[in-house]
């Protein structure tokens, strides 16, 4: 025991043990043979990026989902957690990622929900119990306020309180800090510490490294549905915070053995003297309530070059892409395409001049799911000749060109008329690629181009991007997958809190340099 990513053998202290648990959804393996053991007196951090499968895993612990394969042991006994009621009876209380309170009811009524239906709600009993718990936890809760009147932080405390009122032995918190202020996050940390001292087991889910290191006793790292490693508590205690963080970075972004995605970074020669195709200087975007802003972003991309943007998800990647594409108002700075300023141009005008953007939101923003594949190819040319004339759709023209694109980009679709939403993620991506790389593209922004794709489509998309660069286009490749960036880019810039914190040439030790930049250490 003790060595990295070895499974600590089942211990009789474990409350819950998962063994080889697998859960599939149509087209995706959300959890792939996960092993996990959960102990009283410990905060077990489940760390992983969006879509890693964290919520799916706890869905199975809380009775919402049933595993397709594998076993769950509760107190050492094989148990099928058949319903949320069953999970509660086993002492598993969950604070879900999405608020699970009834807004129109009061806090007290929400806490009472779930009692035997024939009874009068036992308000007095509840009040006494709540008073006792809140005292020992040092929190205050307004029992008779309507939930819709509470702040998100207060609502979350209510949810934790609910788990306590129900005598949970295991408390699961799914991304509970995403809605909290920094002060709220610290308070939650203190609260968790107090709870584990009282003998509770906690599973704390997050995608933020800092929180994981600060609040955890043990960390399991999930990546694309697989558990890629664990730092056991003995080791956790022996390490300092920074060492833990760099170990996590190694787990999250490090090279895995027998990784099928590993390819040698091809050597491309970029004409160093060529004038940059895209020049960005001091680009800034104001923050909003739930998105970070951007500040003084500057970079150049030359023809044939791929510049990567690395960083932990949610650090301003989407804002950067949208500001460049013209979908988000920039509050300062300049963007030049082939030397001409384009920052005051509209989305359509930028596209016209050859700036293309492939969104990561393929179905929401990129395509109209209910429209046929053929129309989706030309969504951004609606009304323009030769596909539309005098306001009329030129079906023959559209179908001819669409058939050509389907062949060229190897889109696997039953027909041109199939609604694009019915295709798999990889094929939707191909439709997008075909549309954006068509006539006149000069600079292409890719936001997480392989996110959620299977291996074959991932590799195909990457090759398509490389080929595009080889044709002399400038590429901005935004990705949270460091492996991808390392295998494709010429240079990698790191974004953190909406600013570029450093740029690294993609040579030998780029991996460590980028990793250090990502967690806030100088390269």
């Amino acid at each position, binding site marked *: 025991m003790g060595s990295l990513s070895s499974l600590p053998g089942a211990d009789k202290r474990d409350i819950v043990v998962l063994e080889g648990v697998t859960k599939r959804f149509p087209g995706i393996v959300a959890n792939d043979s996960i092993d996990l053991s959960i102990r009283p007196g410990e905060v077990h951090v489940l760390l992983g990026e969006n879509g890693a499968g964290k919520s799916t895993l706890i*869905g199975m612990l809380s009775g919402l989902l049933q595993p397709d394969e594998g076993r769950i042991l509760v107190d050492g006994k094989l148990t099928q957690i058949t319903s949320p009621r069953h999970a509660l009876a086993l002492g598993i209380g969950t604070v*879900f990622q999405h608020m699970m309170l*009834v*807004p129109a*009811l009061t806090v007290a*009524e929400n806490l*009472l929900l779930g009692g035997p239906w024939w009874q*009068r709600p036992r308000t007095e009993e509840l009040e006494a119990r709540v008073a006792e718990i809140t005292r020992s936890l040092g929190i205050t809760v307004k029992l008779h306020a309507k939930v819709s009147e509470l702040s998100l932080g207060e609502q979350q405390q209510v949810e934790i309180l609910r788990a306590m009122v129900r005598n949970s032995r295991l408390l699961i918190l799914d991304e509970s800090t995403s809605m909290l202020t920094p002060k709220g996050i610290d308070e939650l940390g203190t609260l968790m510490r107090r709870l584990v001292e009282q003998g509770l087991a906690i599973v704390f889910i997050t995608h933020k490294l800092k929180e994981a290191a600060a609040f955890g006793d043990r960390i399991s790292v999930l990546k694309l549905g697989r558990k890629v490693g664990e730092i056991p508590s003995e080791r956790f205690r022996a390490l300092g915070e920074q060492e833990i963080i760099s170990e996590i970075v190694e787990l999250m972004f490090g090279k895995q053995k027998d990784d099928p995605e590993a390819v040698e970074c091809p050597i491309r020669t970029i004409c160093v003297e060529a004038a940059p195709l895209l020049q960005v200087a001091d680009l800034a975007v104001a923050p909003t309530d739930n998105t970070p802003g951007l500040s003084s972003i500057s970079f150049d991309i030359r023809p044939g070059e791929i510049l990567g943007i690395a960083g932990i998800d949610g650090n301003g990647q989407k804002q950067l892409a949208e500001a460049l594409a013209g979908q988000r108002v920039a509050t300062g700075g300049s963007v030049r395409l082939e030397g001409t300023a384009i920052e005051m141009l509209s989305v359509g005008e930028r596209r016209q001049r050859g700036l293309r953007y492939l969104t990561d939101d393929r179905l929401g923003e990129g395509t109209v799911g209910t429209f046929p594949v053929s129309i989706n190819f030309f969504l951004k040319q609606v009304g323009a000749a030769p596909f539309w004339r005098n306001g009329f759709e030129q079906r023959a023209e559209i179908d001819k060109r669409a058939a050509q694109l389907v062949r060229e980009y190897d889109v696997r679709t039953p027909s041109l008329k199939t609604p694009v939403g019915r295709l798999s993620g990889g094929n939707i991506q191909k439709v997008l690629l075909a549309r954006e790389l068509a006539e006149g593209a000069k600079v292409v922004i890719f936001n997480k181009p392989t996110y959620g794709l299977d291996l074959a489509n991932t590799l195909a998309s990457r090759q398509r991007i490389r080929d595009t660069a080889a044709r002399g286009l400038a590429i901005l490749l935004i990705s949270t997958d460091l492996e991808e960036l390392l295998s494709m880019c010429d240079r990698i810039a790191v974004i953190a809190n909406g600013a570029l914190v450093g740029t690294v040439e993609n040579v030998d030790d780029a991996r460590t340099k980028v990793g250090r930049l990502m967690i806030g250490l100088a390269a």
Partner: protein
Amino acid sequence: MTGLFSEVFLSALMFGAVTAAIPLLLAGLGEQMSEKAGVLNIGIEGMMLAGAYLGFVGAFYSGSLWLGFLTGAAGGVVVALIMALLCVRIGLNQIVIGIALTLGLEGLTALLHHFQFSRSYPRLPAADATVIPLLSDIPVFGPAFFKHHLIVYLALALVFAMGYLYRHTQLGLNLQAAGDKPAALDVAGIDVIKTRTIAVLTTGALAGLGGAYLANVGAGLFIPFISNGAGFLGIVLAMLARGRPVWVLFGALLFGVCLSLTTAMQVAGINIPTDVIQMLPFLAVMIMLVLFGRRASLPAALGIPYERGTR
């Protein structure tokens, strides 16, 4: 014009209003429970027809009005069972199924009635009223409000029972959660499907009872399509009542007055085309919707089937 405003006339008008209001009240209370739990029950018109038909048949053959009420409620429950199975358990579209049930029951009850009674419309003896002592001696109001069949007083009591249920019981909380945020109810350990099923079956029982009252007490006979939109009026009442049973009562009385006025004006032979007079209740619906429709607050998950673990 003296005839129109005589005491007897006024008293009869109000008596008629109460009689007309009771089926609407029962339908409205029933619909309100379904909607609270998140199920838009458009099949309620069909449930009323089933209740009217089976209620009449039950009373006709047994000679007991009470047995008629019982078979009527049971008829409503049977239709509600289909609704619960298709819309709550399987999660089919509530509007489509509701309309299908209503149309189906309109045809079925008409057909069955035709087979049984051919073209005759046998009548039940007039229902005997429970006369409340003292109160019924009040001039004008006494005969209007305190000489009804016992079931009328029970229906009124139900308004307050429902108010208590929603406000002071665990079941009331569960129902509201099922309509507002079913996932929250589910993770609190209460079966959403079961809760909604209970609500829909209760709706069926109340609608069936309303239908049976309509046939057995209101008309004293069954004719095809006898509900004539009462179930739909119930839906309107439930939507406007903002979850409060007592508002269903007020609304039902208001519509009851309109319906009774329609009959009264026809009887009095007032010189307005009957078509216009018959529009009165529906005009009232329009006016109510314009006045209060915007304030109607419906449960957040109304009409959305619940399935665990999807998002």
